[in-house]
């Protein structure tokens, strides 16, 4: 497991929950499992293995995650974001988007896992995945368009 993998795990849970404490807990559990599997060695991870683990954790904690998402209020102090980044756009997107669309979006569009791995682990076809991704892109793009957005909090 590399540094990049830890960042991916943490980012997945952070963007899924927008609560850095919950995200840290879940990430810690995933990392713990991975370390146990690799007997404490930080070796390179198989992408499929990581996607499978993230999805299984998501499914296992789906109910809790949905409850957390319903009270989204991002705590962002332990995270660094690019300049002029507005987290409120994502917050709004996350509130309005079904979790079945949000998870593929995070895995493919943000964490850059391959469509093949994600569709197989989510047990959906590539066409379904593409459709969900398009919906997500259009929705978040629509929210982030400068002439449309009224969301403040740039670079929060």
């Amino acid at each position, binding site marked *: 497991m590399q540094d990049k993998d830890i*960042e991916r795990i943490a*980012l997945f849970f952070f963007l899924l929950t927008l609560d850095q404490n919950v995200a840290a807990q879940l990430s*810690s559990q995933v990392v713990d499992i991975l370390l146990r599997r690799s007997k404490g060695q930080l070796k390179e991870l198989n992408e499929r293995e990581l996607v499978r683990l993230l999805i299984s954790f998501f499914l296992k904690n789906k109910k809790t995650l949905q409850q957390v998402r319903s009270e989204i209020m991002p705590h962002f102090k*332990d995270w660094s974001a690019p300049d002029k980044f507005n987290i409120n756009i994502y917050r709004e997107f996350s509130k309005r988007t079904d979790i079945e669309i949000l998870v593929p*979006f995070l895995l493919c*569009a943000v964490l850059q896992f391959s469509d093949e791995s994600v569709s197989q682990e989510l047990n959906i076809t590539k066409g379904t995945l593409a459709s969900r991704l398009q919906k997500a*892109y259009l929705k*978040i*793009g629509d929210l982030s*368009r400068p002439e449309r957005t009224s969301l403040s909090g740039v670079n929060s």
Partner: protein
Amino acid sequence: MKWTFSLSKFKGRRLTQFQAEEMVSDYINGQLDPERKAAFEKAVIEFPRLRDLIESYRQGQVYAQKLAMIRPSEELKKSILRPETVIDQALERVNFSKWPKSLRMSLEILSVAAVIATVSVLIPWEQLTSLKFGRSGDIVLAEISRQFDIPQEQGLPALSASPEEDSFPDESENEELSPTTSVQVAATAITTTTLVPLNRPVQAVAAIKPAPVLASTTTQVERRLGSLFRGAIHVINARAASQKITQRLSELGGRKAGEVEMGWEREKDLFYYHFTIPEDKYDQLSSLFSEFGSLRLSKERHERVMPEGIIRLIIVVEDKSRGRQ
């Protein structure tokens, strides 16, 4: 997604807005074949909303790239990597996982053995083995919630039995004083009975007051007292009468209450009855004895509590000839 198969029918056909909208991502990602791309571009001119969607999609891609650039702080990464328990942290500090396997195994076995040894030392085995889990060695004759409120300063109950009736040591007294056959409900009487010699007259028992320390213990225990009927009857030919009395008592439901059978010949021509009988048979009992003579009964309070509806009696049947001797 790349469209690899040929769609000859598609050539020259117009795309609907719905079809075109579904192709936005493929168009932006360059996954449409030239024919579809041309048709899509025609549709964009025809349906202005498509331009809007293309712009939104691109903005979405840009925003997704920004999301991908969010990074956790080093501190947060460390906290995620940090083992959860103190033991794990300690093991990590000493690089336990890198120790030789045999050494690790030995240490683990030793730790388990130490835990087992500690637990086995700490467990109060003597107390556990003394627990009989309901198989008490005591004989419980009765457990009853009935209780008499005796004022504390009253001490032992006043005894109404005449001296001659209790001038002999009866077997019930012995039984009650014997520690091996102690009755559960009689536990409250220990402070007084242990101080009394076995053959001491009952009146003397009443006169003896328990030691202060013991008395305080007695008052802490809930006092539950029962009653005992004592009596004596002088009959002609006690032996014959005794046989009849024993038989009739059995018919009335009388059962021995002590160690000896009903009608035990305590001394020559002196028969001893220590028994229990249903309370509602009291009248029949009186009439039974009245057939043989005059029975004098007195009721006294006693530590042994009988179940509801059951009375306990000690009756001595004595031959009249004994009195003349």
